């Protein structure tokens, strides 16, 4: 009888110990999940104290219009495809100055205003040297006849689904400004009118010119915090055509130090 009680007690003790370990493990796992969620920003609205003053309303655009992505620094690809009248063309985004790619379709209502603006004979207001190329999806998805009717005479139009995919265009209308010198995307986004596109292009080229000027004239004393310095470094690297994945970013300090001797 005593032996039986002892065995039961030992068994219960072991069971309690195992359950304890299990509960501790679950609590730890739960804490890690909560920490991960917190790092991802979940639950901020619930945990942050309510402000008595004005509340920041997140920026939004009209339904059906895509939000701008801004400067991405992504590598640009040449624009190859058919024209509505059956020619075959390639526009190089690095063979000249900046290129503004206008991704339009024949069906979207917002695009019709843009097409109409292109048919207008008044100047488009793009910076000098900026070339405009309209890109629609390929003939398997777009009607060449419809595009030809919408396109202004002399307007460069390329029909290529591959180009849409290469630039990861989320929908139309969408605009990508390519820096011809760096061969990289200087800015991209959507717009409901040509005036907005003009502003996007002007801001992108202006920001780039300012960054280049700042780079040439030195930076002075850096009083910003770490995030500020990091953002500025990112801007300057993008302005110099160095984006994530650039080979130069793989070099160690020793390899960089060796460069002048190796190239000299």
């Amino acid at each position, binding site marked *: 009888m005593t032996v039986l009680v002892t065995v039961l007690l030992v068994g219960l003790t072991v069971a309690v110990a195992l359950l304890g370990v299990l509960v501790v493990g679950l609590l730890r796992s739960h804490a890690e999940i909560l920490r991960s969620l917190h790092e991802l920003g979940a639950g901020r609205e619930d945990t942050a104290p309510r402000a008595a003053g004005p509340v920041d309303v997140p920026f939004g655009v009209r339904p059906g219009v895509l939000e701008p992505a801004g400067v991405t620094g992504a590598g640009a690809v*040449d624009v190859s495809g058919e024209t509505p009248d059956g020619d075959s063309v390639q526009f190089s985004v690095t063979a000249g100055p900046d290129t503004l790619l206008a991704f339009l379709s024949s069906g979207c209502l917002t695009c019709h205003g843009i097409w109409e603006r292109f048919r207008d004979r008044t100047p488009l207001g793009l910076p000098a040297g900026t070339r405009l190329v309209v890109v629609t999806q390929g003939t398997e998805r777009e009607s060449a006849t419809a595009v030809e009717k919408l396109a202004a005479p002399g307007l460069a139009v390329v029909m290529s689904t591959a180009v849409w995919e290469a630039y990861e265009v989320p929908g139309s209308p969408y605009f990508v400004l390519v820096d011809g010198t760096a061969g990289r995307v200087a800015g991209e986004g959507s717009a409901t009118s040509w005036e907005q596109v003009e502003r996007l292009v002007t801001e992108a080229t202006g920001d780039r010119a300012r960054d280049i000027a700042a780079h040439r004239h030195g930076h002075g004393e850096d009083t910003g915090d770490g995030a500020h310095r990091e953002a500025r470094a990112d801007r300057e690297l993008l302005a110099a055509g160095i984006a994530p994945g650039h080979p130069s970013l793989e070099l160690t300090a020793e390899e960089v130090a060796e460069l002048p001797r190796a190239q000299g």
Partner: protein
Amino acid sequence: MKLRAHGMAVDAPRGWEVRISRRRREGQEVGAERRPVLHAATVALPEERGDFGGGVTPLLSEEDLFVSLFEYGPEAVGTPLFATKGRPRPTVADFAPNRLQRSIPGQSGCQWFFQEGGRAFCLYVVLGSHARRAALVNRLNDVLATLDLDADASR
């Protein structure tokens, strides 16, 4: 990417501008027959340009080149000018500054008339620098090696 239209095809290297289109010969009236033309260049091709590089060649730097492959009508195939059969293989020795249609100091050029697949063509090339013609001819031949010309002349 391989560009193909109007019985011509070519691999367009990255950084090159290429147009395969139909154009009326310069000076011909509106309504005249349009012939296939291939333009390729390492500079941006303006929309307004001549069959043989008018409006383009002044833009060439020392590292640039321009190519025009112009197809003539079927009546040209039997003429002495197009007697050479098969496309040319350009060499450095072919190029000279005095072979340009529009002379620009420092540039060099050459043109070849030939027939292939029952079609009559003129290949005209302008190099941005006569001094650097060796390197430029290598780039030219890399592109010409990918050129396909269909034999069907009834397009």
